[in-house]
């Protein structure tokens, strides 16, 4: 399988101003959906902006579809649909005006697909940008990134500001894009969304690529927040003694803790009492990162 994105020791240093990225080795296969994850300021946006030629790398090299990121930036951008993380659209323009303009820049004659995805996402194409909410601007941003059916989509926080129904529709579109054999490279803080659509995940922290995992592996490494509510007061000590239980708190009928291990023993222990309610929640992605890195460093929380 050929590669859509490949970097070797890609480095971008900003000097003292801010942290950039360092020695990033990345390989994204054509046709895969690749999640690029990391806390704010980790280097996700810098990586994407360096790949697109907005920032000049200070070390290493990178290619998109075999094209050099420093020499062939225009050719690369012809093959990429880009949704920046922090973006703005010209206030005076409507979405329709923006799409027509970008279609002219790209030499795209038919806006049929643009209208199709606009309708699916509920994008308001005929109102000026200044009158659109953040979510509606995000929809226009998504449409402009996808309307020309690029072989590679680079999407930075694509579902930020979208309501759950539109998020669902967007993820359906991403699955269609994947089915067409196109590549998606996207960053997100939404673990459920990453779990649903990403084949693999790259984790960046402190400007360095910490790991590249399949999505299943990433989820397996995470923990769960557990809240148990009983019909009567329960002794919390047996729960505290369970393997993988941390941060236990209890006030009689209600016990909460973080579970780093399998739930089997915990469920069996809870079943000895009259259980009124059990909450078993996935952690936020930020929490997964912390756990992941602590394990990597051999630390135990």
């Amino acid at each position, binding site marked *: 399988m*050929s590669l859509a994105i490949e970097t070797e020791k890609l480095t971008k240093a900003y000097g003292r101003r801010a942290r950039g990225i360092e020695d990033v080795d990345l390989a994204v296969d054509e046709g895969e959906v690749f999640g690029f994850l990391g806390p704010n300021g980790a280097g996700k946006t810098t990586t994407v902006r360096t790949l697109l030629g907005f920032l000049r790398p200070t070390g290493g090299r990178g290619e998109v579809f075999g094209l050099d990121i420093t020499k062939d930036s225009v050719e690369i951008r012809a093959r990429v649909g880009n949704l920046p993380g922090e*973006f703005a659209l010209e206030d005076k323009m409507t979405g329709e005006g923006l799409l027509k303009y970008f279609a002219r*820049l*790209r030499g795209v004659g038919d806006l049929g697909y643009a209208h199709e995805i606009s309708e699916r996402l509920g994008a308001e194409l005929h109102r000026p940008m200044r009158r659109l909410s953040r979510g509606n601007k995000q929809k226009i941003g998504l449409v402009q990134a996808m309307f020309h059916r690029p072989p590679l989509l680079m999407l930075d926080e694509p579902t930020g500001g979208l309501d759950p129904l539109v998020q669902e529709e967007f993820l359906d579109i991403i699955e269609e894009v994947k089915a067409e054999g196109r590549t998606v490279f996207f960053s997100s803080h939404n673990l459920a969304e990453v779990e649903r659509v990403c084949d693999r995940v790259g984790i960046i922290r402190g400007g360095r690529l910490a790991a590249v995992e399949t999505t299943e592996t990433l989820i397996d490494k995470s923990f769960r927040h557990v809240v148990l509510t009983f019909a009567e007061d329960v002794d919390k000590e047996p729960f505290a003694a369970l393997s993988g239980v941390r941060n236990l708190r209890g006030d009689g009928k209600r016990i909460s803790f973080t579970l780093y291990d399998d739930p089997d023993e915990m469920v069996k222990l809870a079943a000895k009492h009259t259980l009124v309610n059990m909450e078993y929640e996935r952690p936020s992605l930020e929490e997964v990162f912390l756990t992941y890195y602590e394990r990597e460093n051999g630390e135990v929380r």
Partner: protein
Amino acid sequence: MSVVLNRGQKRRRTARPGRTLFALVTHTIRMQLRGVIIWGAAIGLYGAAMVASFTAIEGSADQLNQLMEAYPKGMLEAFGVTDLGDPANYLHSQVFGLAPLALSFFPILALANALAGAEERGTIDVLLGNPLPRWQLVAGNFLAGAVSLLGICAIVGLLTWGTAVLVDVELSLREVAEAVLNLWPICIVFGALALLCSASFHRRSLAIAIPAFLLFGMYLIDTIGRVSEDLEDWRPFSVFYFYGSAIENGIDWTHFGSITLVALALLLLATLVFRRRDIYT
């Protein structure tokens, strides 16, 4: 790291460079259209008002000229006043001698906005997400600014000449056309400087402040240099030294071309600088 593009990716070609540049220029001009009308109307109406006011002083021009003789000769020279009974000289001293100070702000604002302003607003990433070479972004904005400026000059000319026809002031279309066309190079040169600053720095305020400072600085050097021997030698360093009075003497095409060449040199420099630098949002 050798990856061969598959057939679908090979087929994907960027739009022809000429087409992207044309799309950028026409789009930018469309976005500037309202500004062109507002600037053109504002300066044009001022010109029209000055033409109309000429009819009021026309009859007493001799007395006014006598009164002016009481003023220091250098001061009158500084403001280009030679004969207030001549509509061309009157309009040069009241309108076209000062107009570059105001009109230059149109290209300064437009071209400071084009790069540094787009970075500050965060719109540049979406635009450059398209296969648009950086040099085209610089050159396209310059071209659009230059055409829009020409549009403003045309509106100013039409309002000024139209009023002259209406109130029966002796002013030919050619004189007015040359006067407004002569505004173009001196204004675009400050716009090109704003573009260079916009390409060099990431701050729109700097891209406005530097050319604005030079605009007024050069105007003062040229104006004061006419009356002060200390500053006289500095006048050739001011672009206003080469501006002249086209409404009275016609356009000096050598100066017109030289100033335009300076603007083009600044554009070239802006392109080279912007091609190399990082883009921040």
